[in-house]
């Protein structure tokens, strides 16, 4: 068996590989669940089917789908731009945290003023916070050639310490009886990011996620910057001759992904999470990396991948509750998905030939 490079990536496989990867993951995941002593079929059904269609749980789970998918999609859309251009921002988790801190700080600064302007200001602050945090690795790479992968990732640990110190220090709820954690923004209507339509889970973050999908689609297909991003990813040398400024492209990709991650954090802290706590972040920034690849770095694909990944979160919680499946097994499951995806991705770029054919 040998591999033969295709002259052009296969379009059919491009669509089929994520589906194939999901199926393979379900099989491998089933084996893992069986090893844990659970019925694999029940486990898979609990994760992928029950949250949406089981009478008992669907009413609660369906709205959760949008709530969980929104931050994943927002972050993954930003990351996908960079990944296409060969700019590896893997510190979205940190930018997400900083966005949440900045957004919450602005909201809390106005407490208890009931002004219309508070929430828009929080949105701006969240985006700006994430943007600036992402600019650190961006500028270091452009100015000094420092590896942005390592810097952006190391900054996640810095951000985690920062959120802990904020929850214990400046942002701590003065009426919280000394417990760590800020005021609950859900109880402060001017700063709250509540459901827009009751019972759907639709909040401003979901709206922003949908807008970001459309924005990214137009950018990549109809705009010169999008063309530059794709060009730089496929052929850096050609891009340089084509007049692409590599430094500016790095900053653009870093900035957009940081701002979107910051927005995601801000919508999360003002909505579903409600407050800045010590363990505010739950790894959306890392899962979003899987979402970006599962969606083949394509905006529409990311939308679908985000929903699927949100489903594994909700289904995982359900399986934890119903079957006693450990929460870590979902994390392993998600990691497996990325593995299978990368493994079968080969089929889009290579043709598998059986035997030693003479034809080249």
């Amino acid at each position, binding site marked *: 068996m040998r591999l033969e490079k295709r002259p052009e990536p296969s379009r059919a496989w491009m669509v089929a590989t994520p589906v194939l990867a999901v199926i393979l993951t379900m099989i491998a995941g089933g084996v893992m669940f069986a090893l844990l002593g659970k019925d694999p079929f029940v486990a898979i059904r609990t994760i992928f089917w029950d949250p949406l269609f089981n009478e008992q749980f669907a009413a609660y789970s369906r709205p959760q789908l949008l709530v969980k998918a929104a931050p994943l999609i927002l972050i993954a859309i930003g990351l996908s731009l960079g990944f296409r251009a060969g700019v590896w921002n893997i510190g979205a988790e940190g930018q997400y945290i900083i966005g949440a801190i900045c957004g919450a700080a602005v909201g809390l600064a106005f407490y208890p003023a009931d002004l219309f302007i508070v929430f828009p200001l929080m949105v701006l602050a969240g985006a700006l916070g994430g943007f600036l945090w992402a600019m650190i690795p961006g500028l*270091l790479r452009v100015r000094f050639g420092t590896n942005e992968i390592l810097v952006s990732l190391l900054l996640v640990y810095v951000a985690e310490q920062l959120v802990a110190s904020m929850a214990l220090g400046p942002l701590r709820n003065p009426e919280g009886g000394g417990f760590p954690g800020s005021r609950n923004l859900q109880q402060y209507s001017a700063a709250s990011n509540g459901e827009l339509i009751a019972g759907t889970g639709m909040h401003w973050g979901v709206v922003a996620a949908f807008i970001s999908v459309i924005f990214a689609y137009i950018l990549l297909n109809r705009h010169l910057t999008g063309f530059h991003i794709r060009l730089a990813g496929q052929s850096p040398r050609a891009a340089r001759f084509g007049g692409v400024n590599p430094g500016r492209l790095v900053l653009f990709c870093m900035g957009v992904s940081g701002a979107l991650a910051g927005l995601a954090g801000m919508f999360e802290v003002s909505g579903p999470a409600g407050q800045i706590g010590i363990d505010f972040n739950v790894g959306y920034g890392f899962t979003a990396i899987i979402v970006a690849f599962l969606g083949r770095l394509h905006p529409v694909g990311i939308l679908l991948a985000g929903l699927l990944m949100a489903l594994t979160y909700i289904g995982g919680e359900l399986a934890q509750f119903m079957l006693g499946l450990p929460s870590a097994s979902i994390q392993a499951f998600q990691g497996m998905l990325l593995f299978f995806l990368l493994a079968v991705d*080969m089929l889009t770029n290579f043709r598998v030939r059986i035997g030693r054919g003479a034809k080249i």
Partner: protein
Amino acid sequence: MNLSAIDPVLLIASLMVAATPIILAAIGELVVEKSGVLNLGVEGMMITGAICGFGVAVESGSPVLGFALAAIGGAVLAMLFGLLTQVLLSNQVATGLALTLFGLGISALIGQSYRGISPPATTRLDMGPLSDLPVIGRILFSHDWMVYFALALVAVVWAFLKFTRGGLILRAVGENHEAAHALGYKVVRIRLMAIAFGGACAGLGGAYISLVRVPQWTDGMTAGAGWIALAIVVFASWRAGRVLLGAYLFGGITVLQLNLQAAGVPVPVEVLSMSPYLITIAVLVLMTSGRRGNSAPAMLGRLFHASS
């Protein structure tokens, strides 16, 4: 605040311990990168090694067996990376990340039943009268055997890369895989061996954290050590000797900030806790500015596919 509570001798002695996991992981990754492969999954392999080593040591009562299994666990996970990147030609950055995400998940899964247990103690190497020497004895000759194993490993890797034919071939593959392939060297096979070695080293480093440095099991306990090891390879300009320097620098900062926390310095604990990461970033910037990465292996992260 009581700075006099910090004993410099004890500080340097614990620095050696703090640096050991980083040395192990970084020297393994150095070999991988020298062969032209960028494996960003060090963190995942370390945490997998940490739980494999911990579990086996607890079950068998033997830390040595724990370390051995940790190395195997790390190598197995690394071979997954090798299979994907070398045979199925996937993107190395993405696959490395997948390895880290998967490793964190699988280790938390295995580790559930091991929370709150103490592992068997790793034996201290008895050096007789040497350990009784004032100051030097405490700093150099009173550690467990893994500390010396790590140092020996650095020396072996250094000698291998510099003096042996195998080392030369490894470097050739990393500098120009087309040429190495044309000369008849099995590029993929050599790289797979390097990747397995890197995984085993990372596994050992992880096990050192869970068996000696902490010693207990908590989810995600490597806390970025794998990423710092990656940074230290860059800091070391891909030279074995400098890995030691980088790891001691980092170990020193870690130990110092822990001591400062204990001494009650009027700086928030969180600021002290983030200092190792910030300083690593600062050092990275210093090392990469000026010289434009010319010491990196030329084929680092590049795909190799023999078309004929």
